[in-house]
C-alpha cells in the first residue's frame, strides 16, 4: 500500500509536490523559520566565511588580500601542525576507550541496585558540572612533578621515585587524557544508564534461568544491546577528543617540547597569539575533515544495525 502511494507521489511534478508538502506541514515550517535563520546566520555563514578566509591574508582590521592556496600549501609542510594532529590522535587513543569503559562501569554500578544509587549518581556526575578550571587546578595539584604533588607523595610511601608527569613528554599527554576522562565519564555514565534501563528485564531473567553467569549475561546481552549507546558515545567522545584544548592550555601550555600541543591548541595559538587568522581557518577545516571522516567510519562500522535494538 505504502509503495503504491510513494509511486503515485513521485509521478507528480516537483512544484505540485512542494505545494502539497507545504499545505500539509505549513505550520511546522513556519515554526522552524527562526531556528533556520539562526542556523544560517550563526552556523552556515561563519562556516562559509572561514572557508573564504583560508584563501585570504587578513590582519583583523582592513581588507583581506587574496593569496589563493598559500595557507593550504603551508599546512602540508608545517611539521608543527602534523605533530599537533599526531598528538591529538594519541590523546584520542588514551581518551576514547577508557572514557567509554569508565562510563559503562559507573552506569553498571548505579544500575546494579546498589544502596544510595542516587547519591553515587550525583557523586559520579559532579565533575561534569564542575568548572574545568577548578578540576584542572585539582589535577595540577595531584600531578605536580615535585614532592608537593599528591600522587608523588603517595608514591614515595611505596618507594617509587617522584615522577615528572606533566613535565615528561612521554607522560604528559596521558595525564591530560586522565583529566578529561575524569571530567567526562559522568555524562557518559548517564547515557549508558539510560541504555541499561531500556533493556528488557525478561532477557536477564531468561538467562539466569538458563544458568548464565553474570559475566556471560553482560557479554552476551548487556554489551551488544547497548550498541546504539556505544555508537553515540563513541561519536561524541571522538569529537570531544579532537577538540581538546583546555587541559593543555591550563596545565602544560602545549609543552614540554610540543608534546601536548593538540590541533585546537595549535589553532588557538595561530589565530589569537600569532594573529594568523587565515591559517587558523585552514586548521579548523582540517579538524572538520578529520572529525567528518572518523564519524563516517564510525557510522559505517558501529552505527549499522543500530535500528535493530
Amino acid at each position, binding site marked *: 500500500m505504502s509503495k503504491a502511494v510513494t509511486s503515485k507521489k513521485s509521478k507528480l511534478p516537483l512544484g505540485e509536490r512542494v505545494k502539497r508538502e507545504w499545505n500539509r506541514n505549513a505550520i511546522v515550517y513556519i515554526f522552524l523559520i527562526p531556528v533556520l535563520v539562526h542556523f544560517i546566520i550563526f552556523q552556515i555563514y561563519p562556516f562559509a566565511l572561514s572557508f573564504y578566509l583560508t584563501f585570504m591574508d587578513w590582519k583583523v582590521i582592513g581588507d583581506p588580500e587574496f593569496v589563493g592556496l598559500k595557507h593550504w600549501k603551508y599546512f602540508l609542510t608545517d611539521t608543527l601542525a602534523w605533530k599537533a594532529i599526531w598528538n591529538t590522535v594519541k590523546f584520542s587513543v588514551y581518551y576514547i576507550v577508557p572514557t567509554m569503559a569508565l562510563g559503562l562501569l559507573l552506569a553498571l554500578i548505579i544500575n546494579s541496585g546498589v544502596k544510595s544509587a542516587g547519591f553515587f549518581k550525583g557523586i559520579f556526575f559532579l565533575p561534569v558540572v564542575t568548572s574545568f578550571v577548578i578540576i584542572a587546578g585539582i589535577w595540577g595539584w595531584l600531578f605536580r612533578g*615535585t614532592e608537593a604533588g599528591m600522587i608523588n607523595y603517595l608514591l614515595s610511601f611505596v618507594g617509587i621515585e617522584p615522577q*615528572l608527569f606533566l613535565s*615528561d613528554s612521554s607522560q604528559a599527554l596521558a595525564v591530560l587524557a586522565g583529566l578529561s576522562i575524569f571530567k567526562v565519564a559522568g555524562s557518559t555514565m548517564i547515557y549508558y544508564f539510560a541504555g541499561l534501563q531500556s533493556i528488557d528485564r525478561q532477557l536477564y531473567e531468561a538467562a539466569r534461568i538458563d544458568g548464565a553467569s553474570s559475566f556471560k549475561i553482560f557479554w552476551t546481552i548487556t554489551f551488544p544491546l547497548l550498541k546504539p549507546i556505544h555508537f553515540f558515545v563513541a561519536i561524541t567522545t571522538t569529537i570531544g577528543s579532537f577538540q581538546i584544548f583546555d587541559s593543555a592550555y591550563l596545565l602544560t601550555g602545549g609543552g614540554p*617540547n610540543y608534546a601536548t600541543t593538540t590541533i585546537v591548541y595549535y589553532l588557538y595559538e595561530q589565530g589569537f597569539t600569532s594573529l594568523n587568522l587565515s591559517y587558523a581557518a585552514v586548521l579548523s577545516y582540517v579538524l572538520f575533515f578529520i572529525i567528518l571522516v572518523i564519524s563516517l567510519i564510525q557510522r559505517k562500522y558501529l552505527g549499522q544495525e543500530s535500528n535493530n535494538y
Partner: protein
Amino acid sequence: MRRIGFFLLLLLLGALIVGCSASDTDTGTEKEETGGEKPAEEVVGETEKEAGLSGEITVWAHPFTGDQETEGAMWKEVIASYEEQTGVKVNFEQIPWANRDQKVLTALAANNGPDVFYVIPDQMPQYADAGMLLALDPYLEGFDIDDFVDTALVSTTWKDELYGLPILQEAYTYLYNADVIKAIGEDPAKLPATWEEFEKWAEKAKDKGFYATSFQGGGSMNGTLYPFLWQAGGEVITADNDVLINNEAGVEAFEFINKMYKEGWIPKDSITALEHDALWESGKMLAVQGSGISVSRMLSQNLFEFVIAPPMKNKEQLTYGTTGMFVAPINTDNPAAAAEFIKVVTSSDNQKKFNTVTQYIPTRESAKDIFGEQKYLAQLADYTQFALPGVIHPEGRTIMPLIQAELQTMMEGKKTPKEAADAAAKAIEGKIGK
C-alpha cells in the same frame, strides 16, 4: 490549515517588524538620552569647546585587583575627572583576563570594539605592526612626556611612533626567605648581586635540602630565559630582524638555566611548571622571582620574613617588568577623545590613584612617591630603571613557544644548551621568514 499557516506567517512577520521597530526606537531613545545629557555638557561647555571634543567613547580594561569595590570606585573617580575635563561620556567596560585577545580582536574586526583598551608590551608591537593601533604623536602637542620613566616608554613605541601611554610598571626581582638564608648560614643583609654569588647560595641551599629558586618553564619567557639572557648581555631579536638568541651571551643564559636544573637548584618539574607556590610558601625554597603582587601576597599571608634583592647582574644588571598601557584602535570613531582619555588616565594624579589601588608602580616619576611608607614597594619602584618590558617586536609573542620548546628539550636532556639555542634561533628565523 492553509489559513492558519498564513495567519502564523503574518504573525511572525509582524513580530519581526515590531522587533526592528523596537530596535529603532531604542536607538532613538539612546540618542535622546545622549541629547538629554546636554545640560551637563553645557556645564563644561567651555572646556569642551576648547578641546573640541564631544560624543562618547568606550573603554575596556581588565580587573587589576581582587577588591572590585575599591577598584570600581577608583575608576569612577578617574573617569569623572576625564568627563569633567572634556564633556565626553565614557562607557567603561571591564572584561576578564581570560581570552582577552579573542574578545578584543573579534570586536575590532567587527568594527564594534572599544575606543580605548589596555595592552601589555608583547601585544603592542604586534597590533601596531598590523596597522591596528592609532599613533598618538599627533595628539601629544604640549603634553609632558618627559615625566614618564624611559623604560616604560620603550614598550609603547614601535618604529619611532608612540602607540600608547603607560600607566603601570613592574620590576621582577628575587624575594628571599630570611629563615632559609639563616639556615644556610648567610646574611639577609648581603644578598647575591651576581650570578656567581647566587650559585654559591644555591649550592648551599641544595646541601641543606632547599630549592634555590623557582623556574616556570611552562610560563612566559619573560619570567624564565629573558632576564638571564639580558643579564648575560644578550638579546633575542632586534627590530631589524637580527636573531641574536644563540650568540655567546645567549648560550651562556641557556647554560646557566641548564646548570640550575641539572644541579637540582630548581624543582624537577620546572620544565613545564606554571608556579611553585606550595614549595615557596611551605619554606622549601630560598628565593622566587616576584614583583609588587608577590609582595602584597606575602604581606597578606604573613608566612615568613622575606627580603628583596636588587635585580641580578652578570654583564648587565637587568630584569623583566611588564608595562601596562592604554591604546586606541585605528578604527575608533572618536580618535581625539580616545587619545585625550589615554592622556588623562595616565596623568600623574590619576596614576597615583590607579597604582595606589592596584599596587603597581607608576610610570611617571612624579607619581612614584605613593609608596613612601611601604618599604618593599618603594624598593621595587626603584628597580623599574632595570626592568625591560620583554621583546618589543611584532613576533615577540609568536616566537615564545618556539624558544620555550627548545628550552624544555634542553632541560629534558635531549639537547645541549648550544644546540637548543641554535635550534631556537633557527626556529625564529623560520618564523620571520629570514
